[in-house]
Structures are given as structure tokens and as C-alpha cells.
């Protein structure tokens, strides 16, 4: 199927990029480095290693998504490789979705490698292998999915520099979403209150995906939370992809 072709091509292209290898190598190193901290941790090894591991996987995943994702569509436009595809009987939406899924496939592979490596290190150093780690990583992964969708969205109309900038800003704002809601609840002025509430709901609430703290302190993550968060990620991503397709459909190439 044509979609599959584009997905695989995007994946191949991303995987053959040197940047990817550098990021993977670096994160593997960092995860291993947490082992160095063991003698300093005075009995708190497991907490520190888990902190480091979950945090690193999250950060590197996001970094990867922003760096590689923001280049993808724009580079095609810039280097005219896009003419090759669009002049053939392929829908424009297929192209966008194909690119998105191709990137996602790439990032999934990277995260998978990191998680396996992390599990190995954790087990070797502390003997623990809690399943709850997977929950935390899964939600971090959903965060990466949304970030990737944003990259695709922005890169349909701006250069990689702005695209990564905007995506990064949205990432920061998205993580601070609860504070915005807090601010909204403490504002007296009804107009400001309404505006802030609106902002709160429109921006991606990335704090939904952060259960690292709970996992590290061995607290249970509720099923409801996981299910609703999955739904949230799904719907938000769909919104972004539909918007990207629409922008791309109308675009003069």
C-alpha cells in the first residue's frame, strides 16, 4: 500500500541519519553512567537509577522528536524531493500521515532500545525489575507522540528552526499547564479567568503523561488515569494530523 511505502521510506531515511545514532549512543552512555552514582547514593541506588533512567528516556525521546521531526516535512519541501511523490497518484493526506507514522516508527524503535538497556542496567545494579516502569515509559512515549505530531504540524508551514522552536515552547508550556490552571483559578477578573482557562484546555497538558514520581516512590497509577490519558493523546494527535493535512492540501508546492 502507498501509505506503507511512505512510512517505510521515512523510517529508512531517519535511521540512516547520523544524528539518530549520536543521540542513541549518548543516551545509552548516560543510562550506564547512572551506575557510577551508586556508591554515592548511600542506599538509595534504586531511586537514583530509576530517576535518572526515566528522566533520561523522557528527555532524549523528546529531544529526538523535536530535532528530527522538525526537519522532516520542511526538508522535503526545501529540497524538492516532495515533487517526486506528489506528482504521482498519492493523496496529500497520505503523505502527511505516512511521514508521521514513519517518524513514530523510528522513535518507537529508539525508545525500545533505551528501555531494554535501562532494564538491564537496573537489574544488574539493583536486582529490581518493576513492571511499573513500563507504565511510566509508555506515558512518556505518548508525550513523544504528541510532540512529533506538533513537529509535523509546524513543519508544514515554517522552517526547521522555527518549527523546533515553537514545538519546544509548546513543550515547556504544556508541562506547566497545571500552573496555568492554578493561576486561572486564583484570578478574580472574569475575562482573565476565562482566557486562562481557555489556554489551559487548548494547550497540550503534558503533565498528564508524567507519572515518574509516582513510579519511583512505588505508588500505584490508577487505571482510569492511564485510559483517559491514552484517549487524550489519541484525540489531540488526530487534531494535529487533520490540521496538518488540511494545511498541506492547500499548499502551493
Amino acid at each position, binding site marked *: 500500500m502507498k501509505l506503507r511505502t511512505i512510512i517505510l*521510506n521515512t523510517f529508512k531515511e531517519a535511521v540512516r541519519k547520523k544524528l539518530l545514532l549520536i543521540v542513541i549512543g549518548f543516551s545509552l552512555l548516560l543510562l550506564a553512567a547512572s551506575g557510577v552514582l551508586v556508591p554515592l547514593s548511600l542506599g538509595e541506588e534504586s531511586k537514583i537509577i530509576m530517576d535518572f533512567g526515566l528522566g533520561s528516556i523522557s528527555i532524549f525521546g523528546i529531544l529526538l522528536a523535536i530535532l528530527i521531526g522538525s526537519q522532516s516535512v520542511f526538508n522535503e519541501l526545501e529540497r524538492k524531493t516532495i515533487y517526486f511523490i506528489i*506528482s504521482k497518484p498519492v493523496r496529500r493526506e497520505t503523505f502527511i500521515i505516512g511521514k508521521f507514522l514513519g517518524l513514530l516508527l523510528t522513535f518507537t524503535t529508539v525508545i525500545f532500545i533505551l528501555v531494554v538497556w535501562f532494564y538491564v542496567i537496573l537489574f544488574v545494579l539493583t536486582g529490581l525489575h518493576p513492571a511499573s516502569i513500563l507504565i511510566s515509559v509508555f506515558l512518556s512515549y505518548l508525550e513523544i507522540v504528541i510532540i512529533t505530531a506538533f513537529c509535523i504540524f509546524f513543519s508544514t508551514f515554517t522552517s526547521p528552526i522555527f518549527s523546533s522552536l515553537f514545538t519546544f515552547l509548546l513543550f515547556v508550556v504544556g508541562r506547566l499547564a497545571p500552573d496555568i490552571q492554578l493561576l486561572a483559578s486564583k484570578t478574580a477578573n472574569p475575562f482573565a479567568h476565562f482566557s486562562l482557562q481557555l489556554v489551559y484546555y487548548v494547550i497540550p497538558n503534558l503533565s498528564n503523561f508524567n507519572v515518574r514520581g509516582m513510579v519511583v516512590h512505588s505508588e500505584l497509577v490508577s487505571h482510569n488515569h492511564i485510559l483517559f490519558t491514552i484517549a487524550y493523546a489519541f484525540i489531540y494527535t488526530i487534531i494535529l494530523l487533520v490540521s496538518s493535512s488540511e494545511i498541506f492540501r492547500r499548499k502551493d*508546492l
Partner: protein
Amino acid sequence: MRPIKIEKLTKIYPKFFGNSTKAIDNVTMSVEQGEIFGFLGPNGAGKTTLLKMLAGLLYPTSGQIWILGQTMHSFSAKQSMGFLSENPSFYNHLSGFELLDFASALFGMPAEKKTKRINALLQKVGLGESGNIRISDYSKGMIQRLGIAQALVNNPELLILDEPLSGLDPIGRKEFKEIILSLKEEGKTVFFSTHILADVERICDRVGILHKGKLLRIGELNILLSERQRSISLSFKPSEHRKTPSLPDAKLTAEGYWNITVNGEKLQKVVASLLKDGAHIISIIPETVSLEDFFVSEIEKNET
């Protein structure tokens, strides 16, 4: 059914500040089945814009386009069409073979005998040995050839090529022209653009001239060229006792003989006059109007 039919096509690029540019201005034309059509124009005339609209990459501001009887952007039109953009670039991480494989998949072509088909195509464009080399290592000429190949993957009825001969050395140009002629022999229609006049000579059935978005002339090449009144160049030596000829427009050349250019009607009178004076006529050569002259004069006419 004509492969390409264009009616009152206009493309305006709006600008926030200043005047918007009219890239294509009310162009109406069509291309006949089985012909090779050369689309001429200086740089910036709008050729690429027009071709991109034909390929479904740009949206017209107004007007209509029909490709193979279908409206623009329709899948079935793209299914039987091959497009090559100007200065093409393809995914550098793939090999030539992989790219053509990718193209086949985009056309939804069956997987059987795929390898055979692709190799045959590579052979046809002269890339038989280079199929497994990464595109990042291809020369300009090789990329151009690959470009033609990917436009032929689906065995299209219509080919739209933007500056297909750019960047090729003389041998490459010759090979390409031969490929285009062979495509015509297969019954295909070829529509290509170029700003190099020599490209259209010999192979085009019809040409069109585009300048500043306007279609200036369109028609068979020799008919267009024959419009201009033929000038005739006459070389002679005046007779011994007349050092200078009686004809006021005659010029002395460096080789020592005289030359005068007359148009066809006056030829008889001048010859008679010279013979009467006893001049020795060296040669009578009709000047062919070069395509270049024709082209330049049309452009200049449009400038005013």
C-alpha cells in the same frame, strides 16, 4: 481527447506589500496526441509555474486544465502521466534502483517482475551499471537520467518534463533527444520546457513561446520561422572599371569583395543591375531566420 488542454489559465502570487506578480497570464493552448511540444521562454517566464500546475503541484488562480481528459489533480490523470521537475533531487539515502522501486509502489504497480522492469528502465536511460549506487553519489547527468526513468516507471501516455536537458554534456543531450524521439515512436506525447533554443530544433513538432506569463506564439516551428520575409545575401565583385558599385547599401568585406542584403522582391532588380554593370556575382545565399532571431524579436515585441 487531447492529452493537455489549458483554458484561460492564470496564476497570481499575492503579496502583502507591493504589487502581486502574475506568473501565468491568461494562457490558452493545447497539446495534440503523439506530438513533441517544446515550451520556450527566457528564465523567469513562468514555464516551471505552468508545468507545476499541470502536474498538480500548484493551484491555479483561475482557468481550467484538463490532463488526458480528466480535470487537474485527479488520480487517473496522474496514473498515466510522468513528471520531471527542473533540477530534480531525489532521496539521497536511496539507491537508483530503490528509488524506482519506491516510484513503482506509489503507482500501485504489481510486485511481479518488478526487478526486471526496473533494470530494463535503468538500462534504457543509461544507468544500467549504476542502479545500486546511492543517489548521494550520483553526478548531475546521472540524476537527470534517473529523473527520466522515474517519469517512465508507469509507462505513461503523457510526459511533462521541466528543463530535461539541463546540466547534460553534449553527448548526454544527444542521448536524451534520442530517448524523447523514441518515446514519440512508442506513441507517447511529450511536453517539455526549456530556455535553450537548440534543444527544440530537430525534435519538436510544435513550439510555444512564453514570456512574462503570456503565451506569445504557438505553432509548427518551420511555419513560424517562415513568416519573416526572407533576406538574401549577395556577394559580388564590381567590374574592373568601376571601383565602387552603384548600389548604395553594398558593403566592402574584409576579404575584398562586396556584399549586399536584399529582400526577396528586390533580388531580380539588383541582379539585373549588377550584371548590367558587368559585376562578377560570387554567391547568392538566402538567409535562414534563426530560431534565436525569431525568439528574440518576439520577446522584444512583447516588451514594448
